[in-house]
Each structure stands twice: as C-alpha cells, then as structure tokens.
C-alpha cells in the first residue's frame, strides 16, 4: 500500500474504471491521473499546477508560464469527456483520499484548454472537448 499517497493502488489496472473507454484515451487518462498519484494528501491544491507541469511536460506547452494545452503530443485533450467519466468512477470507487484534488486537476485541465483556445483560435472558434 502506498501510505497516505493520494491515489490507492489499482487505479491503473481496475478494468471497471476504463470499461467502454477507447484504449488510447484510457492510456492518456491513466498518465494524467498518475501525475498526482504520489502527491501526499497534506499538500495544498496550489501545488497541483506545479506538479502537472513537472510530471507531464508533453501535455502542456512549455513556452508559457501557466498551463496551456499542447495538442498533438497526446490525445488526452480530445478525451476530456472520457476523463470525466473515469473521474466519476474513481470517486465512486473511493480511489482518491482527497476527491477535491481530482477536481483541482480537472479545473487545471479545463483552464489549460481554455487558454489554448484563446491563444490559437482567436477568431472565435473554440474547442471545449471532443
């Protein structure tokens, strides 16, 4: 067991979490969720942004100070709907010691995608998810 780590063991391998999710999407979602797996529950949410940037450089555009989605390197940004489904299952299965941290990384993902939209699609076209 991983002590007081944020996610308990099995979040990568439990089939019930990733049932009916396409394999490629499931892989990228595992990777994204895994970025906070080793955070301790005592750490504050403010560290989420730092942890995501450090653990997942290929998810985020490194040219900016804040998190901005980096499309092309991962299909995660096209699978936010699936990510939301997996997050719900993690909450139901009590996989996370602090569910608010799951909300925090979701919030950061939505903000990163919003910033991407603002920078890339300034003509008015927006992409929220799939």
């Amino acid at each position, binding site marked *: 067991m991983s002590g007081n780590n944020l996610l308990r063991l099995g979040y990568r391998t439990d089939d*019930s979490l990733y*049932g*009916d999710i396409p394999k490629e999407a499931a892989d990228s979602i595992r990777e994204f969720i895994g970025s906070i797996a080793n955070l301790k529950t005592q750490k504050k949410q403010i560290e989420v942004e730092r942890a995501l940037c450090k653990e997942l450089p290929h998810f985020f555009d490194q040219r900016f100070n804040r998190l901005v989605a980096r499309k092309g390197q991962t299909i995660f940004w096209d699978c*936010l*709907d*699936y*990510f*939301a*489904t997996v*997050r*719900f*299952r993690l*909450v*139901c299965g009590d996989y996370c010691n602090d*569910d*608010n941290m799951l*909300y925090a990384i*979701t*919030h950061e993902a*939505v903000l990163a995608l919003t910033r991407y939209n603002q920078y890339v699609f300034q003509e008015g076209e927006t992409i*929220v*998810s799939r």
Partner: protein
Amino acid sequence: MSLDRLQELSSTDSDIAPSDIEMHGVKYIRSEYFTDGQRIFFSPLDFALNGPNDGSVMEREHKLYGRCKVKVLKRHFERGSEVPSFIECEVSRSFFKHKLWVVVRTTKLVLEKFPYNSIRDIYQPNYALYPDIYLKKNLRMDLVSPRNDASIAFSIVTGIPTGTKVREELL
C-alpha cells in the same frame, strides 16, 4: 417557457398546434420518440409530469453503453404544489447502479439540499441531473461532471441531455 405559454404570447393567427389535444376522452401530448418507439422527454419538468409512475422502470438498449435502466423511486413534492421539486431515481447498467436526483424546480428546500450557486459560475453550472454520490461526498459539479455514468444512462433512456440545467427562478 412551456408551449402553452408560448402559444399564449403568440398572435392568435399562430400556426402552432396546442401542446395537448383531447380526443375521445384521451389526452394526447406533443412528443417525440426514439426510433425504437420510446418517448423522448423534453426536460426534467416534462419527465416529472409525463414520465413513469413511482416504482416504474424504463429501459433502453444503446449500441455503445448496452442496456440502461431508470427506476423512478420517489417524487418529492412540497406542500401545495402539484409539480414535484425533485425526483429520486435509480439508474443502472450492466456493471453499476447509482442513485440520481433529477431537480425539477428551484425552491428554498432544493437550494438547501443541493449546493447550487446563487450566482452564475461558468465553471460550476447548476445541473439538473445530480448523482447522489456527489451529495454524499459534498462535492460540487463542475464543467465536465455531467459526463458521469449515472447521467449518461439516464440521458440514454429519457433523451434529456446530461448537461441540462435547473430552472433559475430562485437562483
């Protein structure tokens, strides 16, 4: 706005048919259907008024999600109202069973029970389909929360979109 109200506000020469017609003692309501013949509900209010009775089960087969079932457990009325404020449902698929609240109206009681915002927050909209697990764990629904198993299954059976928002009279 209901179709009746829309018609009332429209001119008298309007071509809009009344939303309900009574023929031979039977009341027919305007409605749409899935290809398998099951009724599509327009909104939580439509589901509350014209949906199955308490204890009834609705089910539908979906290509991707399989067989989904919705059991209406109980409609919750407030004193003096003929329209329920919220409905308690049990939603199930092959590998899960969840309780889901369908919020029909925003009354004071509803605002006490469900953690809705009094202001419009773009990151935490006030969704009408509220999984019970969020209430138990005291979690708010955010932008992506409607994509959960319970809301998706309910949407497949009833046709009500997962991201449907509550009516905002009191918000």
